[in-house]
């Protein structure tokens, strides 16, 4: 087991390295320059000497390999540097948005689980009946609706029918739970509904597989409720793929909710991402990509660990 863990940990490193190299060079291939963006557009007169001064200040005039080494050096020390656009330390920029994105991801995942598991189980227990069809239709509808459209409909509905608007500014949960939830419950519902779709389907197929087991089929207790109780042990194993999917989706919820954040006006990592890329803020974009990649890789690792722990061939090696 220990060797397995060490091997997996070591494998994380080349992946992270690969992500780092790719994002660094990718950003520099993409045309566009933060300095020009800063000084152009509104209110003209952008002069070349000003542009050059800015470039020097941001370190963009140094050769590429030098910039890369500086950044990698910082990365190893967990120093992400400062944002090229605002000049503030990146750790601060991220910290401001991290709580919101994390909370939204958690709430959306909870909504997804609360929807997926009961619906999936019911659909399996009543396979091919109208209940099954209804559940499948509902969950697929979740996958099919564009999230920004859903968001617009939500906000419009709240405004027109209830004449009420969710709070505009983020208050942390421990400061004012009511306001906090009043703001985040709507995007959590919209996002959670979408992410429940895949999990519902997987729960349904996992449950169906368990129900096929001979000992369940031939059990003398014919009632569905009894079948459910009998299958609960087998269900635990069968639910593993479902939890895998949920865990992986969670990793994507951090920083991936770009459109949702825009529609609900949330000051989260997704918006920061789009802004950073739009501004060609190299340091911030690189840091964010590394963060998201890191979360994804760690979650992957934990899931693999869970599987390995359950597989006796690996556990007792």
């Amino acid at each position, binding site marked *: 087991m220990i060797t397995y863990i060490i091997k997996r940990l070591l494998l994380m490193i080349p992946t992270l390295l690969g992500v780092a190299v790719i994002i660094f060079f990718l950003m520099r291939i993409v*045309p*566009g*320059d*933060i300095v*020009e*963006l*800063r*000084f*152009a*557009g*509104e*209110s*003209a*007169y*952008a*002069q*070349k000497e*000003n542009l050059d*001064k*800015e470039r*020097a*200040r941001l370190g963009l005039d140094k050769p590429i390999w030098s910039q890369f080494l500086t950044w990698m050096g910082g990365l190893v020390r967990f120093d992400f540097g400062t944002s090229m*656009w*605002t*000049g*503030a330390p990146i750790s*601060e*920029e991220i910290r*401001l*948005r991290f709580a919101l994105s994390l909370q939204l991801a958690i709430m959306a995942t909870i909504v997804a689980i609360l929807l997926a598991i009961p619906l999936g189980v019911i659909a399996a227990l009543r396979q091919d009946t109208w209940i099954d069809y209804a559940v499948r239709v509902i969950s697929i509808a979740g996958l099919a609706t564009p999230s920004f459209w859903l968001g*617009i409909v939500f*906000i419009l509905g709240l*405004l027109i029918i209830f004449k*009420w*608007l969710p709070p*505009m*500014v*983020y208050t942390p949960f421990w400061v004012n739970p009511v306001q906090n939830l009043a703001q985040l419950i709507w995007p959590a519902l919209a996002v959670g509904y979408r992410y429940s779709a895949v999990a519902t389907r997987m729960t349904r197929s996992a449950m169906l597989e368990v129900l096929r087991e001979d000992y369940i089929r031939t059990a003398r207790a014919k009632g569905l409720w009894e079948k459910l109780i009998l299958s609960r042990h087998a269900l635990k194993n069968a639910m593993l793929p479902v939890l895998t999917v949920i865990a992986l989706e969670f990793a994507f919820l951090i920083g991936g909710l770009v459109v949702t954040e*825009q*529609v*609900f*006006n949330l*000051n989260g990592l997704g*918006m920061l991402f789009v802004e950073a890329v*739009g*501004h*060609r803020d190299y340091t911030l974009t690189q840091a964010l990509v590394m963060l998201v990649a890191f979360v994804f890789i760690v979650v992957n690792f934990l899931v693999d660990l869970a599987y390995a722990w359950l597989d006796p061939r690996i556990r007792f090696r």
Partner: protein
Amino acid sequence: MTAVRARSSMLRAVLAGLMLVLSAAQGADAQERPRYGGELVYVVPTEPASYDAHREGTFALIHPLAPVYSTLLRFDPTDRTGTKVVGDIAESWTIAKDGRTYTFKLRRGVKFHDGSDLTSKDVKATYDKIVNPPADVVSFRKGQYTAIEVVEAPDPTTVVFRLKWPAASLTTALASPFNWIYKADILAKDMHWYETHVMGSGAFVFVEHVKGAYWAGKKNPNYWDKGKPYLDSYRALVVKDPNAQVAAVRAERAHVQFRGFTPAERDSIVQALGPKVTVQESPWDCVLLVGMNHEKKPWDDKRARKALTLALDRYQGSQALSKIAVVKSVGGVQVPGTPYATPPAELEKLAGYSHDIAKSRAEARRLLKEAGVPESFSFSLKNRNVPMPYEPMAIWLVDQWRQIGLQARHEFIESTKWEADLRDGNYEVAVDTQCSYAVDPDLDLYKFQSMGISGNNYGRYVDKPLDDLYQKQSRALDAEERRKYVRDFERRLLDEEAHYFYTLQWHRIIPHSAKLRGWTVTPSHFVNNQLDGVWLAE
């Protein structure tokens, strides 16, 4: 259902009309006594990169921080054209006969928020930084102050500007809302201090800025203008999504958004709040231009360029687009209603401004044929991917050019890439933009000078007569003489050479809470943001 709809839309129109009338009346209504107290809440759409206005060009810094600073001169907050220069901390000034010396008398009793006095040495240090910054300091608008040779501070309440040549728009340049007066002692220690810190002398004291969330300021009890400000405090909420901004005003969470809303947003706010909202509108000193790359065929031929502007039915466009986008007025190189705007009789004569569109389009086709442009000629139109009003304008342009047999391929590209493509000449025809902080020929015409002189002439042309005209108008101290040069410049730019052309002037629509008083809309969203005269009614 239809009758109800028709009635309610008529009602909306009537309401909107009422609001406009009311707002006009309010501007003239000086008898109302301002009420003290209250917190003004407004929304700002983006965040600036630093706190130093000398190096920024965006309104995103002006809106939340202008109330905290003073400037030497400013634009009269009650003047709807936003062109009348009055003193802020300058009490009065005199101009020498030859126009090369400006002497300003400063007010007494102006203090920074840390208690120290604001004197002429602070003004001098500020303008030294703006006009002649050290090597590692950026002064964004340095190019506007090339006329200034030296700034002197002979005594604590006098500042003297000596110019190398007469500059007709110097007071406008000094009234720039970006020229915040900084403290000389601080600048002496660290020229970069103001990029990350705030120390002003304005009507409000800076309280805090929570990034991505809000800015807050409170009343300055020691403001030099006794009796002002009326407000106790202000709070600028950062709300990036336009729908959320509208929702904030609509739900009465915020009093106003100082940049501008779209016609649809205005209508939805008016419909929701009725008499609780006042709408102020004005032509905007922002415009979308069409730039043609003079280095690419057929745009090196002025006949092809002229055909593009002749094809546009600006008047119909104004009517139609003003319903769905923030554009409206048909104008020349200066916002209609301002001192150097084009008189309608002259406007009619310029290419593309005739009321007879059939004739214009026939002429356009003829010119295209002469220039050897084939029927159904296809070219790319590069546009910045900002929804309003870039997108609707491009749709309109493509549609108008279809009427003369041209196929424009609209490419909606990212701001940075669009910027890069324009700068590198990597385009055929593109939508370009211009926004000035004040309506002034120096500011609005600078761009169109030859490549090499103007840093953002993306047309890539060289036109010496045009440059001469710019110089002449810039140094003409007599208003009539200046007007003549501006008209000549305009004619050459838009008609004879058709280097660039104007589409429609943007339109600034500000629906705000009826409680908000003492604020008048101007064509510039950079101006009139100091909030010292603003008050909240019951």
